[in-house]
């Protein structure tokens, strides 16, 4: 009898412990983003041992598919979701994310305005559905030593200066290509092209209508294609890893698109052959001022989550100034807060942070339409056809415009 009582007591104890423990599931990214999330979970668990957190580290496309299915069906398998800002409009307009202010969150003015705005619907000052976690913004990189060697004005202020510098360096430096960008079809080529496109004053969607084939858009594409003449062979299939290798290996003078996530590698002597020689700046402008593309990764709470309060508590923790600062110093995490960008210790470690903050302040988000994924795919298809010479810039953008219009009208 006594044995039974002891067994019952143990069972009751285990059950009550299990019930007392809150369990959160995070659907997040893999790679460096996953490492940051893991470290944040470690820090959070040290303060909140009664919260169990499971992290799913997923690749870009896999994360999107899983989130759409889970959120659309209201399954609630994930409590916290990490989302690219281009998905945000779609997710928020469908009511798939919880209203953070209704859950008790007060927006913090320390966040960079452009970063916080993409987590709101309607953009830029509607309901707050997600907080900015990764301060990704497209940056521009150039080799200061080569610009000085050829007496080129630097930093380049316009895309025409970039074209001229790329042509000159490509001609006189036998081992160095003038410029590099991501030419792979789909998201990579669109991402590489947009700062030029916006710099020319062109727009993808204007007043709800497709507008890519404007004279400004065509002029931007012509400049983009002209840059290809000074890019390494095979740039048509280049993705991030090839751009990174070319820049780190000292094989290119200019990269029109680099990202905060891997910029620290440029000053790492173990990985880079151009330590201290590469300058990082916001993208140049032309008709418009600098128009870098913002690519914030947000954290939101699933509307179907059964642990919304606990989920918000973790999101608040990971985006807090102290934790962002720690993650930035330890892991090079791109922050989304002014206070971290202006922290002397952080700036001493990452010399390009003032430029990164300037880029965030002048950044342009991709169109806030729910069908952006499809628009981006279509634009990427036709930009590539122009890049490989199967279509003229005019034909490519007119064909893209017709398809985008059809998507908008559907």
């Amino acid at each position, binding site marked *: 009898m006594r044995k039974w009582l002891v067994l019952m007591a143990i069972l009751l104890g285990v059950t009550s412990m299990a019930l007392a423990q809150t369990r959160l599931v995070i659907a997040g990214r893999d790679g460096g983003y996953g490492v940051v999330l893991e470290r944040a979970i470690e820090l959070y668990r040290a303060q909140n041992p009664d919260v169990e957190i499971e992290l799913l580290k997923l690749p870009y*496309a896999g994360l*999107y*598919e899983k989130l*759409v299915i889970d959120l*659309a069906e209201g399954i609630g398998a994930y409590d916290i979701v990490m989302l690219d800002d281009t998905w945000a409009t*779609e997710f928020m307009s*469908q009511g798939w994310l919880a209203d953070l202010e209704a859950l008790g969150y007060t927006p913090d003015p320390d966040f960079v305005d452009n970063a916080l705005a993409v987590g709101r619907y309607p953009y830029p000052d509607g309901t707050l559905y997600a907080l900015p976690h990764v301060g990704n913004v497209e940056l521009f990189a150039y080799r200061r030593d080569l610009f000085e060697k050829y007496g080129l004005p630097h930093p380049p202020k316009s895309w025409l200066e970039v074209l001229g510098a790329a042509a000159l360096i490509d001609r006189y430096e036998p081992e160095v290509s003038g410029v590099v960008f991501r030419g*792979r*079809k*789909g998201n*990579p080529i669109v991402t590489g092209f947009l700062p030029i496109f916006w710099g020319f004053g062109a727009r993808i969607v204007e007043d709800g209508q497709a507008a890519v084939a404007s004279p400004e858009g065509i002029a931007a594409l012509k400049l983009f294609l002209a840059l290809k003449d000074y890019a*390494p*062979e*095979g*740039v*048509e*299939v280049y*993705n991030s890893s090839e751009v990174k290798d070319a820049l780190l290996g000292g*094989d290119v003078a200019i990269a029109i698109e680099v990202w905060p996530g891997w910029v620290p590698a440029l000053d790492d002597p173990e990985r880079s052959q151009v330590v201290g020689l590469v300058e990082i700046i916001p993208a140049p402008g032309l008709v418009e001022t600098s128009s870098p593309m913002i690519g914030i990764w947000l954290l939101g709470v699933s509307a179907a989550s059964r642990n919304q309060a606990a989920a918000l508590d973790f999101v608040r923790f990971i985006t807090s100034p102290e934790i962002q600062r720690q993650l930035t110093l330890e892991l090079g995490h791109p922050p989304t807060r002014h206070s971290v960008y202006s922290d002397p210790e952080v700036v001493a470690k990452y010399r390009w942070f003032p430029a990164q903050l300037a880029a965030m302040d002048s950044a342009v988000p991709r169109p806030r339409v*729910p069908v952006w*994924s*499809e628009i981006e*795919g279509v634009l990427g*298809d036709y930009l*590539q*056809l122009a*890049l*490989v010479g*199967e279509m003229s810039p005019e034909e490519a953008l007119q064909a893209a415009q017709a398809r985008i219009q059809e998507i908008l009208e*559907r």
Partner: protein
Amino acid sequence: MRCHPLFFKLMRSKPAPKRPWHERHFNLLLLLPALLIIAFLTIYPLVNVVRLSFYEYNYLRGTPKFVGVENYVRLFRDRFFLDGLRNTFYFSIAATVAEVGLGLFLAILFHRRFRGRRLLLPLLIFPMMLSTMVVCSIWRSMYHFDYGILNHLLESLTPAVNWVLGLFGRSPLEPIRIRWLFDPDLALWSVVLVDIWQWTPMAFLILLAGLQSIPRELYEAAKVDGASGPALFRRITLPLLRNHLFLALLLRSIDTFKIFDKVYALTGGGPGSATETISFYIYREGFKYFNMGRASAASVVMFLAVTGVSALYIRQVLGRTSAQ
């Protein structure tokens, strides 16, 4: 004439009682679970895909709207789908023929006993055991224009080529380097080459098993009758290997027709639409844009094409079997 007593006994006996339903349909009952699973996992989704192909339906927005054959009309006006259809056929035919041809050659080679055979056999089937993403990663680095080993090898051959050209009074060539993955005329064939490297071992194993099942006595008898090597191959090996050849062709053509992973990892469908395939098109429409109606229409076209090809092969194999 007296009747046998058993006759009267049988006449008096009652008719045999009817067996219960479950005994009469026992075979059907045994098959039922499997049939239900097939119906649930195969037939229902197939019927649903066909139904959806007649609707404009985006999973993220709105409810399905019946549009008749509009999705099909749109497909056959879309250059990316048409390019994908053409590329899929080219890919499937080239990869299947090359894999089965090479597999046959290797099977004949390995059917004989030679020194080192035991060591080489596992090495030969090694590519098949690798994950496709690993294979693509290896080949992507080998295909790199500047740092790839293939272009490095070709470059190192240039002096020898120029020496030969010099003998004929021709001007020397620039260092030979090939734009493997980004030349629109070459990219598809570069992907085909990766598939051949990975999947020839499968055709090889099927055909080796076929060769090993042919009785040696047949060859011995034919040799006694004076048959030579080529005649033995034509008259004995090929006819008896026919079913295995068709099996290898069927399996490889179905698999290559579904090509997706290599395109995804190596080229993303580019450059331009040079490596676009039907599976890649379906993936984009279905899982990136969630246009389920259009993805379903493309899937139906693909299903019909695969069924057509399979039917041809199966007819050949079954026709032959029943004739025997």
